[in-house]
């Protein structure tokens, strides 16, 4: 069954980080975005709160809104602190460090700040975290277990930048950043107006299978193909050849961070006129993930 999820709203935060200037202060942004006085949280949690809060736009979400938070590496900073305490210093971590090291801590804080009581899931995926989270949410929608969901991805920077660059595997010349991208989703039958629909969430084990699927769908010039960060513009142009589809290089102005799929969706909705966007990502094993966004 093809998924149809209605996107009610998007919200995001992304920022390049310049080591000499330190990490941008987020506490005030958290207050502005969520109206919540949140304390004892890590930078990763703050980013999650800013993005999710902006997505909810200070509107009251139904308490049964579920939270699906995805990330490529999770909260690396708190994990490093925890391991530093336990192994290098041979000390017990502080209670706050321990609590925040639980992967679902960010989901708890998002749910708590926005007054949500439904399920929450933290999903990690090396190559397209947001696509994995959308698929998980879709399964819950399909089973009738979820009616509204906040689905997001978060990537945080940590200092020193030298260590962060090693973790995210980029050179000193690359501008790195951090981001939080969120979608507020509901089922297609929801009468509230949406900005777009997610109409396909597919995974393919080979390029051949992806080509077959594309040829069946018959994409034309009313659509754009947005290459994910592990899928080159060249590959995208090759797939577009003969279809009339344009490639949409939304990544040119973005600093490097792990999950940029949410940025693609938001940029498409804000900057482009086409009816649909096909986001394609790949991994080193030659598998492909596809998200199709169609304007409402």
């Amino acid at each position, binding site marked *: 069954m093809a998924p149809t999820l209605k996107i009610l709203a998007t919200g995001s935060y992304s920022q390049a980080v310049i080591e000499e200037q330190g990490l941008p202060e987020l506490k005030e942004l958290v207050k502005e975005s969520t109206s919540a006085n949140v*304390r004892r949280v890590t930078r990763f949690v703050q980013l999650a709160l800013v993005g999710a809060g902006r997505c909810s736009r200070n509107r009251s979400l139904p308490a049964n809104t579920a939270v699906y938070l995805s990330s490529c590496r999770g909260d690396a900073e708190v994990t490093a602190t925890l391991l530093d305490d336990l192994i290098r210093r041979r000390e017990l971590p*502080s209670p706050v460090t321990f609590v925040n090291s639980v992967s679902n801590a960010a989901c708890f804080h998002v749910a708590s700040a926005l007054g949500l009581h439904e399920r929450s899931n933290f999903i990690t995926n090396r190559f397209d975290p947001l696509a994995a989270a959308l698929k998980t949410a879709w399964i819950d929608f399909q089973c009738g277990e979820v009616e509204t969901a906040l689905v997001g991805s978060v990537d945080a920077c940590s200092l020193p930048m030298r260590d962060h660059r090693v973790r995210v595997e980029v050179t000193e010349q690359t501008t790195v950043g951090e981001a939080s991208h969120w979608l507020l989703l509901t089922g297609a039958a929801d009468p509230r107006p949406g900005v777009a629909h997610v109409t396909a969430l597919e995974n393919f084990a080979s390029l051949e299978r992806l080509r077959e699927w594309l040829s069946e769908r018959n994409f034309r010039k009313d659509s754009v193909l947005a290459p994910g960060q592990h899928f080159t513009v060249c590959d995208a142009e090759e797939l577009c050849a003969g279809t009339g589809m344009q490639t949409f290089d939304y990544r040119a102005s973005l600093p490097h961070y792990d999950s940029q799929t949410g940025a693609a969706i938001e940029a498409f909705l804000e900057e482009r006129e086409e009816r649909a966007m096909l986001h394609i990502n790949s991994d080193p094993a030659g598998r492909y993930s596809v998200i199709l966004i169609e304007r409402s």
Partner: protein
Amino acid sequence: MDSSELRLTLKKMIVEECDKDMEPTDIQDNEQLIGGRLDLDSLDALQISMWVQKYYGIRIENGPAARSALRSVDSLATLIHKELTAKSAEADPA
């Protein structure tokens, strides 16, 4: 460290460890810590207890002893002073 210095150190620690948006001097010596105006909770209590153990080597036991010690900055300072005095007497019985 004299008594007022110890109290100020504890107030700074509470602001830092519990991530409170306030000046240390805004905390009154006899102000209720847990659940009062400061709105500290059990995680804050654990955080404070661990700090006291780390910096003064004083273990605050669970239960009534912890509730009594963590009632206010005054009570915490009194406990630390008492324990440090006892330790000092043990180390130098003469």
